[in-house]
Every structure is written in structure tokens, then in C-alpha cells.
């Protein structure tokens, strides 16, 4: 991408959303905006940029901004799901899985790795308690490019400052020039694989916890329902689902119930039914 094109796009994004795009995010512009160009019947991203330069149409600018911002991933994004995972979900699983000592976690929209690595850091902070446990974190995403970045675990100064407490940066990252790399120990805790949520989930196995945040918002209603119903099929009966703060199961599926007072956290309807009986 030419320097002046990068500058044009980053200026527009900054103005419209406050998003600060560093030079090392060129790949992100390319991977997110090329599909928009294609959708508009243009050959290349350059054609799209020319269109922006010439006409600055509001709806195109909005589409570009949305594509660049909605997926942006932070460490410990929205904090609540991570607090709930640590304080509610894990203690429950440590009891319920005391014999098998095995927990499987799926990050269904792993993006550039911040979400699975945030979970890995939480688990690593509890390692004495978890000694002898086999904990698997699978991170999937449609985009191979973002997964390459996730696997490398290298983040810009901006990225490591959004949501990541300084003490965790000190403990789990090393500095490499202007960038920060997450430690091999944390990287090894997560397995990444490219995966389309529209495909069958069967090859993935069964999970105790699923994070599927800020991805359903891209889908139509019937696709949302379909994904949620199939998710239930891959989850343990006492499994926990986390959705994004702006997402819900209401009106989409009966297979999950919101956990009252715990924003973004859902349990399977079967388990909710059993809890009611016991209660």
C-alpha cells in the first residue's frame, strides 16, 4: 500500500472513530477493505481508495470505518467476561471436573489472539491451583492473516496498552524493538486454526466454555440462530457461553438462557432447567 493511501485511510478512520492506525496495521487495512472493494465490483483495493479520494461518499466511508473498527480486539476486552470467567466459571469447573481434570475452551472469533491470550494469562496466574489439569484453548477465526498474527503474538505499543494491566505486560511480554511479544509459555497454551462458523463444528469436539463475542453481529438473524443452536451441540451440558455486550440469545434460540445479573454470560437451557429443579 502506498504511503499516501495509508495516510488517507488512517486520517479518515481517526476522524470518524478515533481509531489510531499504526504503520504496522497495513495488513489489517488490506484484509478488511479488500472484501468491500470486491463487494462493490471493484478489482482491487486501489480502486476503492481512488473512489474514496475522488468522491468521499458517506456510506462508503461508514462501511470502511465499520470494517476497520468492529473487529478490533483488546486484551481483556470489556473486562466483565474475563472477571466472570475467573470468579464464576473456573471455580465451578474446578469442582465439576475434579475427576477428569480437563477443561476445553473455544474462542470462536479469536482474531489477533488477544482474547485467548487474556484467558491464558488468567489461567497462568492460577497455575498452582491448576497443577495437573489439562486445559485446552482453541482459537479459531475465518481469516488466516489474523491467525498468523495471533500465533506470532507480537503486538504494537498501542495494542498492549488497551486493557492489559502493566504488571501482566511485565510478566508475560518481552520487548522486541517497538513491538511486544507475548511469552512462549502463553503462546503454547493456545492452538489456532482457521475456521468458518458457517461450517460444521463437529471436528472441534466438545467445549466447557465458549467465547463467541462480537461475531454474531455480522450475521443475519437465521444464521445467528443456526450458529447458536449448533454451538449448543458442541458444549457440555453445564457449559458456559459468552457473547458480546451488544449480543443476545433472546429471540434467536431457546437452547441458551442468560445467567441473571451476569452480563454476556449464558448457560445451556438444559442446565438452567436442572438448576431450577434442584433449587
Amino acid at each position: 500500500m502506498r504511503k499516501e493511501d495509508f495516510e488517507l485511510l488512517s486520517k479518515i478512520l481517526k476522524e470518524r472513530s478515533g481509531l489510531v492506525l499504526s504503520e504496522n496495521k497495513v495488513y489489517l487495512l488490506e484484509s478488511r477493505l479488500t472484501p468491500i472493494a470486491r463487494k462493490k465490483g471493484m478489482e482491487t483495493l486501489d480502486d476503492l481508495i481512488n473512489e474514496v479520494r475522488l468522491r468521499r461518499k458517506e456510506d462508503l466511508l461508514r462501511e470502511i470505518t465499520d470494517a476497520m473498527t468492529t473487529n478490533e480486539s483488546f486484551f481483556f476486552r470489556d473486562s466483565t467476561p474475563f472477571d466472570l470467567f475467573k470468579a464464576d466459571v473456573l471455580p465451578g469447573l474446578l469442582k465439576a471436573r475434579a475427576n477428569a481434570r480437563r477443561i476445553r475452551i473455544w474462542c470462536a472469533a479469536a482474531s489477533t489472539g488477544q482474547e485467548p491470550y487474556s484467558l491464558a494469562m488468567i489461567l497462568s496466574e492460577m497455575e498452582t491451583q491448576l497443577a495437573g489439569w489439562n486445559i485446552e484453548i482453541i482459537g479459531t477465526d475465518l481469516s488466516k492473516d489474523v491467525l498468523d498474527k495471533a500465533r506470532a503474538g507480537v503486538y504494537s505499543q498501542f495494542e498492549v496498552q488497551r486493557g492489559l494491566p502493566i504488571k501482566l505486560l511485565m510478566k508475560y511480554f518481552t520487548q522486541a524493538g517497538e513491538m511486544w511479544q507475548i511469552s512462549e509459555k502463553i503462546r503454547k497454551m493456545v492452538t489456532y486454526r482457521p475456521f468458518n462458523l458457517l461450517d460444521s463444528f463437529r471436528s472441534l469436539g466438545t467445549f466447557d466454555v465458549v467465547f463467541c463475542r462480537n461475531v454474531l453481529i455480522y450475521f443475519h438473524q437465521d444464521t445467528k440462530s443456526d450458529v447458536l443452536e449448533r454451538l449448543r451441540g458442541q458444549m457440555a451440558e453445564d457449559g458456559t457461553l459468552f457473547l458480546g455486550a451488544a449480543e443476545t440469545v433472546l429471540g434467536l434460540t431457546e437452547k441458551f438462557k442468560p445467567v441473571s445479573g451476569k452480563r454476556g454470560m449464558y448457560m445451556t437451557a438444559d442446565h438452567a432447567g436442572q438448576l431450577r429443579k434442584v433449587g
Partner: protein
Amino acid sequence: MKSCLVVDDSKVIRKVARRILEELDFDIREAVDGQDALDSCHETLPDVVLLDWNMPVMNGLDFLKNLRASDGGDKPVVVFCTTENDMSHISAAISAGADEYIMKPFDREIIEAKFSQVGLI
């Protein structure tokens, strides 16, 4: 309303930080170096200090050590905000009692994220 002391020898940085923090509902005082900041703290302790490192008269780290050694000086949350972005500076700041550390350049999102991590927002 929580109070924040913005310590930086750059007028521009103080202005940017003030604007962001006022939007986040903080009452802002400013100081131009570590000594100025200490004087301000001796008058009234703020809830939080946003602290530059390299400043004339007294640098941020010396201010922090002085503050933490003074009466009631353990109370304010101290967030460094500096171009010093290597691990040795970060470690020195945290060992001296800083609660969080922002590497410049910063934006509203980073300030908001860091302040919320230390329970200020």
C-alpha cells in the same frame, strides 16, 4: 468528582490530558515538574496523578519516591505517562510504587482503559 493532578513539562500534553480527563469527569490540577507537583500534593492530595518522567527541576520518579515517603502519600493512584518505553524504566516505576504505566503516545482509549483498570472509572 475525582481529582487528577497532571504533571508534565509540556503545555501541549497537559492540555490534551486535561481535555480527555475532563470528559471522563475528573477535576484537573496541573504541575510543570516534580517539585511543583510535590508542592501541589502538600496542599491537597489528589485521587490520581498522571505523571511524566523527564522534567526539569525534579523528574517523575523522584517525585513518586518523595510522594510515597510522605504523610498520606501512599493514597493517590499514580499513573506514569512517558516516552520512556523500555522494561527497565517500567520496572523502576512499578518498584517505586506506580500503579500503572502509559507509554506515549497515548489516546483517550488508553487513558480510559488504564484508569478503569486501577478502579478510577
